């Protein structure tokens, strides 16, 4: 008897919970936003601040990489995909086959910093040198090939830190530094920008690349020169905006078709002065001229 009553009560509670949840879903609109790890912090900040602008819209943000976001857009499970690289022709075709129509929006720019251990004596590095370190068939295996000795680095072996092969950062680095050649085999492929920075910070022999926004005081960022012997440029928001830093890239958001309704309002707000000041505060360059006071 007791157990039967118990059962009825719990069914009632569960039903009412499900009903309330559904009711809540009807009143608030949820925008699903997923993709690039580079953009995830900014996307989160946008989502939070948008709560004060329009409390009726909830933006659910998750990371996982540009490939994840675009794949989710292709599969139709997100409203907005974040990407730190442009959509590939193959992906565009796949999306169209699935009845989706990805529309590209540039929401900001990011300088890709080359990170070194704080004990590494190198201050500047050229794109050619980076290609020799990272590229397939590249000849630089040891720090002595670059004419330096890194204290605390056994055998002076260059520990090359890269990203997993679906990352937008990986794809952009391949395009900008390796001119679409392949990466060397044997790079340590980290899962996320944060992991790259963590590993380089703890490993004297290491070199890695990640968005400028992941910089900490415990590691060093190289000044990057376009050609060997040329003047180098330090990564910063300003050099990313004026285009003088050689490895700065646009950051994208993709929607399915021209955004309308709540998604359209959200995209407009992101590109407004208020939205663009948020991306600037997070260490990225804004897509439009802003005045943040």
């Amino acid at each position, binding site marked *: 008897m007791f157990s039967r009553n118990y059962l009825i009560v719990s069914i009632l509670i569960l039903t009412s919970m499900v009903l309330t949840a559904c009711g809540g879903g009807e009143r608030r609109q949820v925008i699903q936003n997923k993709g690039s790890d580079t953009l995830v912090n900014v996307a989160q900040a946008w989502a939070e601040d948008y709560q004060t602008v329009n409390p009726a819209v909830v933006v659910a943000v998750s990371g*996982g990489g540009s490939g994840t976001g675009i*794949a989710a857009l292709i599969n139709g499970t997100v409203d907005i995909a974040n990407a730190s690289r442009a959509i590939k022709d193959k992906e565009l075709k*796949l999306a169209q086959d699935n009845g989706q129509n990805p529309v590209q929006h540039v929401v900001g720019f990011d300088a890709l910093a080359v990170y070194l251990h704080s004990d590494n004596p190198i201050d500047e590095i050229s794109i050619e040198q980076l290609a020799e370190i990272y590229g397939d068939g590249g000849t630089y295996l040891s720090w002595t090939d670059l004419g330096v000795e890194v204290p605390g680095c056994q055998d002076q072996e260059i520990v090359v830190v890269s990203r997993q092969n679906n990352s937008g950062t990986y794809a952009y680095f391949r395009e900008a530094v390796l001119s*679409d050649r392949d990466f060397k085999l044997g790079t*340590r*492929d980290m*899962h996320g920008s944060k992991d790259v920075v963590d*590993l380089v910070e703890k490993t*004297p022999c290491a070199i890695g690349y990640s968005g400028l926004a992941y910089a900490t005081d415990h590691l060093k960022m190289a000044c990057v020169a376009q050609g060997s012997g040329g003047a180098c440029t330090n990564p910063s928001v300003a050099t990313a905006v004026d285009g003088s830093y050689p490895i700065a890239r646009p950051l994208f958001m993709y929607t399915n078709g021209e955004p309308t309704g709540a998604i359209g309002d959200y995209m407009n707000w992101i590109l407004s002065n208020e939205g663009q000041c948020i991306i600037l505060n997070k260490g990225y360059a804004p897509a439009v001229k802003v005045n943040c006071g």
Partner: protein
Amino acid sequence: MENQTVPADSGLDSGFDRLNRDWYIDKAVQVLVFIGGISAIVFIIGIFVFISKEGFGFLVGDFNFKEFFFSPNWRPTSESKETFGILALIAGTASVTGLAMLIAIPFSLGTAIFIAEFASGKTREFLKITVELLAAIPSVVWGFIGLAIMNPIIIKTFNVPVGLNVLNAGVILGLMAAPIMTSIAEDALKAVPDRYREAAEAMGATRWQVIYKVVLPAAKNGLLGAVLLGVGRGFGETMAVLMATGHSINIPTSVFDSVRALTATIAAELGETAAGSSHYQALFTIGIFLFIITFIINLAADLIVRGIRKG
């Protein structure tokens, strides 16, 4: 006679009514239990069919047997030419599992012998519970230990460039596989009849001689089964290996080389791949390969363990 048969009949009738309802309940429960019983088989077949279906497009399309198994070039997203070679990944998984077994076999057999043959009373119970507790540590926690604790220790102790390597993952995986192997090895030792030990002791054998000359040979099938299950565990482990190996495509020449495992590759890449692309299908083909390997290992372990129980 008639007077007697009628009430008997009506009694039978009402009895048949109840029998009827009970009969249906009985049948329903039978069917439920049957479904429960075969569900594991249904799920396994279902999983295999699903993985095969997803990987099939690759197997009939871009799949090239020689490249797949004998090339270390795993470049599924290359701009110039996509290559799907898993030799380096197989080498990674095999080296880590091999080292893990070198570490786990002496530890787990030693523990099993101590628990089954020497320990008694509270010591035995305490040890058994501790070993089972070790088996309950989630693999991501092991991976975290590898990444945050073992990495700097290995760099400092061995003076190597990076601590995420075969050694790190092998030690972690060895510690993960040891509890399961210990439990099964202990069962195998306990399955050796006491009369063997008594007979040996009656002949004047010391305790060590009893174990070494009598118990271990008698339990060898079960012990081999335990080792094989440990190997299967090592092959299938994902999270800890992903975090501790360094995730680098590399055929290792020493224990200080970073490697990448088959399982970790699937875990790291599948979530970010557009469904239906050849990269996606290639990952599922790795899944088929892993499935077949672990299936063979587990089947072999099972057959060997069964062998001792019957004999």
